[in-house]
């Protein structure tokens, strides 16, 4: 099996699906000849041509708006938003249009657009090349939100997303775009949307995470395991629909929960996880639920390593929670 990084896995998924299904088109800023600023669409323009790998004008609202129209007509557009931080000009098209088309038309029209976008910090990108806006989308009924942490999942989840009937916000952890490597089967396979994965089994505390943060949490777990702690790590993979069974089963077992994400704490996705647990597993809890997150400030530049949840902060949360 070839070893791919996440970029390669995404690229492979796009190529496979474009070969298999002529309705699939890719569009966005600089995705054509240039292959995207992260090279995720590299080589597609050469293979599929400018009608299916489309360089658009600089307007995210236009990218998503036209993608919706294409999907209504029966194509399968996979637009790229260059950085998640630049998705907001398209926010109206996403939350008021894309998310609601099926519902508002009584099921007459659907627009299964899969929006790919790199998200997250750790690349010295400051305010505007580091954001993690997943909670905005998870709060919007009608959207699925998928965030892989590794090449295998990236490929399988992207293929599942494109083949699905629903709009998907597919967020790619750019900090580990190249760093996260792994064996990826050649050819076709899917990873089902809505299933979390236990990355490390453990008895003492459940650590919930997704995307790049999975790697931070694994690092933290290694640290604390050396001191005899035994955390269970769950990579959510899909934020919406959430695999609540997996979350609750684990927390009921361990009686403790730590949640890690990069986005600001207040009203972040971690709040939903904590609320879910407090609603359905409260009586099994033996310690307060702790969130290790970005702080409630805009994403900084020089101090980004202080801002981002570090393995040390996660490790401390695990220790404190277990010892509580």
């Amino acid at each position, binding site marked *: 099996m070839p070893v791919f990084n996440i970029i390669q896995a995404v690229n492979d998924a796009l190529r496979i699906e474009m070969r298999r299904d002529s309705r699939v*088109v890719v569009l966005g800023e600089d995705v054509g000849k240039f292959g995207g600023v992260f090279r995720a669409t590299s080589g597609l323009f050469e293979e599929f041509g400018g*009608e*299916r790998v*489309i360089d*658009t*004008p600089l*307007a995210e*609202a*236009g990218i*998503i*708006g*036209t*993608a*919706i*129209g*294409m*999907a*209504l*007509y*029966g*194509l399968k*557009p996979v637009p790229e938003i260059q950085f998640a931080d630049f998705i907001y*000009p398209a926010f*109206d*098209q996403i939350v*008021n*249009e894309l998310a*609601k*088309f*099926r*519902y*508002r*038309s*009584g*099921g*007459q*029209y*659907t627009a299964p657009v899969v929006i790919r976008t790199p998200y997250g910090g750790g690349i010295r990108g400051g305010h505007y090349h580091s954001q993690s806006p997943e909670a905005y989308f998870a709060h919007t*009924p*009608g959207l*699925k939100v998928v965030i892989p942490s590794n090449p295998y999942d990236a490929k399988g989840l992207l293929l599942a997303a494109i083949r*699905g*009937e*629903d709009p998907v916000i597919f967020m790619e952890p750019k900090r580990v775009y190249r760093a996260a490597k792994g064996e990826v089967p050649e050819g076709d396979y899917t990873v089902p949307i*809505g299933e979390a994965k236990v990355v490390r089994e453990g008895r003492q505390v459940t650590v919930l995470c997704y995307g790049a943060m999975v790697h931070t949490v694994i690092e933290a777990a290694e640290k604390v395991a050396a001191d005899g702690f035994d955390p269970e790590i769950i990579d959510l993979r899909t934020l919406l*629909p*959430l695999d*609540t*069974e997996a979350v609750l089963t684990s927390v009921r077992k361990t009686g403790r929960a730590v949640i890690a994400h990069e986005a600001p704490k207040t009203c972040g996705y971690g709040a939903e996880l904590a609320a879910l647990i407090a609603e359905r597993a409260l009586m099994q809890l033996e310690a307060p639920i702790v969130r290790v997150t970005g702080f409630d400030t805009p994403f900084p530049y020089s101090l980004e390593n202080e801002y981002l949840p570090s393995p040390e902060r996660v490790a401390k949360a695990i220790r404190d929670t277990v010892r509580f």
Partner: protein
Amino acid sequence: MLMTGRQPSSSEDELFSLIEDDGSVAPDGRPPVLSEVDALRLFRALLQVRLVDERMMKLQRQGRLGFYMQSMGEEATHLAVHALRPSDWVFPSYREPGAAFYRGYSLKDFTNQLFGNAEDPIKGRQMPVHHSARSANYVSISSPVGTQIPQAVGMAWAAKISQKDDVALVYFGEGTTSTGQFHVGMNFAGVFKAPCIFLCRNNGYAISTGYQHQTASRSIAVKALAYGMPGVRVDGNDLLAMISATEEAVARARAGDGPTLIEAVTYRRAGHSSSDDPNVYRDPNEPKEWERRDPIERWKRYLVARGIYEEAIESQYRQEIGEEIVAALAHAEKIGPPAVETLFDDVFSEVPVELEGQRQELLALPRYVSPHGGS
């Protein structure tokens, strides 16, 4: 130094019209070919919009309908869709019901939608006048204005990519040209030569906001220049001119020559919606002015001049339409609201586990009887 825009070129400000005051067609106007049957069918379609509007507004005033929006004076713009094939797509705003009717949307579906009842084609999901008619290739209406514009471009562009010759026609008001959506849609269409017809109903108002507060542009049509596409100002109360301009734009689009912007110059004679009182912000004489330019009267004069108008036919149309409306209303008012459990359908292609849980939670409650239910 050359400052573009200092000298309004008079040609760009000219208004294209075909039907003269006496109903005759301007001698050098190259009018579209229109059979007698179609000319009468269009007449009936114009009347239908007017009569439906009158009736529904009355209902709204009686408190039997939650909300309504009229098109009075703008009906001719709806029927620009005569220039389309059924396989072409229409992306409407909320003020073109005539385009839906003309493409086969039934009065029954229309009325059920207004009442949001259990037979509403969109299952009571949206406010009145937010229709969706898949069978008529009439795309789901959304309240946020302008969002349909890039969507129409995407559909048109998709047709091109799919090597079909379907075109899109997208409606919007002049107020909507101020949105970012208008700009990005027009710009994408220009670059990709999408077969899309942009039809702006310039009815002078966006709720209370007049044209001069909306843009300093001397016309809407001139905005086409910014996107490298042709723009044309058409008398929006002249159905023949509307059809002619749209046919030309459709022909260009199908020939691969790209998009066109049509500015239909018209006037919103009624309030913005049933919630509006236009007398607060405009001189009540202003709409009166425009009564003289009524598009239906104008079409009637055209029929007369063509020698195909008969009073008996008009009465017959009026009566038929009136009866249809009464029947549709009688039916719609009888039907109750959609079943509670439908609240959770169509969010996704399948109901996710958590959402199914919410459905069960709601169904387990003692049934709450909505005071508005079905009306």
